[in-house]
């Protein structure tokens, strides 16, 4: 559905995209992740035609977006990271306005609008002013708006940011429904567990390049994820840190509240020995677990440039 080849975009001296490659298959629910400034929004804005690439090629359903921008517009629905709504319009009017922007008018527009509002659970709010809607409702309205011209590809930039857990759950269900209808969805988000749960494919972008792409299992297989040991300490954190600093198999130490995340290269016996050492030193350990590899750990490992939270880097590291 969407294919990006060697995409480059430079703003002044800042290289936003540095030869990005990306493939989103038909019917996929593609999670697009990366740290802030990695180039996600630039990629999305380039795909929807709001930015012109410096070089590279983008095709949507086989249509080159630079050569045939008009055709491309009817293939993409876009939900930005902001709501993009008019407060002084009613919900139905808002939908009809965007329907008219796509050349849909009259009964056809009304029917399409009603069907979409029903799909996102806003059919009873059609006569309400948009300003009276809750944040979650506004986001669902934006989703319905993006689907008004029935595009095969839906691109969403941080759609669940700032939503409460229930609304996020409802949103996820809608996305699953859309996938069931054969839509291809590209979703950019920082809520990694959520993406891991619903996405069929993941693309991790860092410093303008695609650093990992595929299903989560493929990525975990491809990237040798060294998942950290998570040690939860009730008392004696300083003593624990002293032991960890001196341990030859400890590579990194990151503190998060009462938890200590330890990059540990040893095997199960070494882990047991470390735990025994901590207990002997009267450190009150109430949690000691090596986490299973997941999207978050992959993300942290790939995008770790050694600057965040690491309080120790062993000489051998």
């Amino acid at each position, binding site marked *: 559905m969407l294919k990006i080849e060697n995409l480059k975009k430079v703003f002044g001296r800042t290289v936003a995209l540095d030869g990005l490659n990306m493939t989103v298959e038909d019917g996929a629910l593609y999670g697009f992740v990366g740290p802030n400034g990695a*180039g996600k*929004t630039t990629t999305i804005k380039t795909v929807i035609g709001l*930015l012109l690439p410096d070089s590279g090629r983008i095709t949507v359903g086989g249509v080159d977006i630079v050569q045939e921008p008009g055709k491309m517009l009817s293939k993409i629905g876009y939900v930005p990271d902001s709501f993009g709504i008019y407060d002084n319009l009613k919900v139905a009017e808002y939908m009809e306005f965007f329907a008219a922007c796509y050349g849909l008018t009259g009964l056809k527009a009304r029917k399409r609008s009603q069907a979409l509002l029903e799909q996102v659970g806003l059919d009873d709010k059609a006569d309400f002013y948009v300003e009276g809607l809750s944040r979650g409702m506004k986001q669902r309205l934006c989703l319905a708006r993006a689907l008004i011209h029935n595009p095969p590809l839906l691109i969403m930039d941080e759609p669940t940011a700032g939503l409460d857990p229930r609304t996020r759950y409802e949103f996820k269900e809608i996305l699953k429904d859309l996938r069931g209808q054969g839509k291809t969805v590209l979703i950019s988000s920082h809520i990694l567990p959520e993406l891991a749960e619903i996405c069929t494919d993941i693309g991790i972008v860092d410093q303008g390049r695609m650093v990992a792409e595929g299903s989560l299992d493929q990525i975990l297989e491809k990237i040798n994820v060294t998942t950290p040991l998570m040690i939860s300490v009730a008392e004696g954190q300083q003593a624990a840190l002293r032991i960890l600093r001196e341990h030859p198999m400890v590579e990194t130490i990151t503190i998060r509240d009462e938890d200590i995340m330890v990059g540990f290269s040893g095997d199960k016996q070494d882990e047991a020995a470390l735990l025994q050492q901590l207990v002997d030193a009267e450190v009150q350990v109430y949690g000691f677990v090596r986490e299973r590899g997941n999207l978050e750990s992959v993300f942290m490992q790939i995008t770790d440039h050694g600057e965040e939270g690491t309080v120790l880097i062993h000489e051998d590291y």
Partner: protein
Amino acid sequence: MKIINPVYRHETRAGARSFKLPLIVLAFNGVLAAVALLNMYTMIIRVKLTAELQYSSFLGLYAFVAAVEFALLLLFIPAMTAGSISGERDRQTLDLMLTTRLTRSDIVFGKLASNLSTVFLLIVSSFPILGLVFIYGGVTMADVGLVLLCYVVTAVLAGSIGIFCSAAARRTTMATIASYCIVAALTAGTVGINYLSVRFLDMTTVSGASGKSGLLYLLLGSPAVTFLSVMERQAGGGNILAALVPQLEWAREAGVMTEYWWIFSMAVQLFLAAFFLWGAVKSMNPRRRRRRRL
């Protein structure tokens, strides 16, 4: 089927709902009516005191009310239009519109048309006040029609400037300031530059030569000079115009477009408006924006 521009339709619907529209109409006509009635009252008092009825004072009333309306339009229009595109940008709805089938021209013309609708409403609603002069006669419907045409051209020009600034500036405040600056430069700046150029020639050339040159044709872009030339044709009293345009006498004698100045100047101003609209469409091209937001 050709549909009404969606932006125009949406803007007029939202505008009609807003309390701002009746407030603007009320303020505009309120000021105009107050000025007209006060002027009329003063005139009647003078007649009572002197027992002299000067017909020219009725034409003076007409010219004064028309001038106030012209000034109010120049004051209102940049404020009304400067937020039209930048407001969409602030609401972050501009990118959404640009990803639909709407073209940039659709958006610009939709915005201009909706703003001009409001301005036409102001002009039409003020017609009864301007029509006070019909009580006494001396001004024909055709004359008033010409004044209204002058207003419309001024509205199109000032509106286009507002839309251009709104499309080019990142923020509404900047767009408003820039619109007022350009409108002031065209309206009064051109007059000032011409005046100074004539005075400069006065100092540097042989006596009498200065009145024939200067930058007379620069004034074709000034809505104020167009308005004054129309008023002079209808109500006489060309003192203001003569004071502002020192080479006017020479131009009249030489017949340099003065007879049909208003036609040429309106054509030039419409051309300028088209240029500003073209600029607005060009500066709205999102692919030309150099954003740092990644």
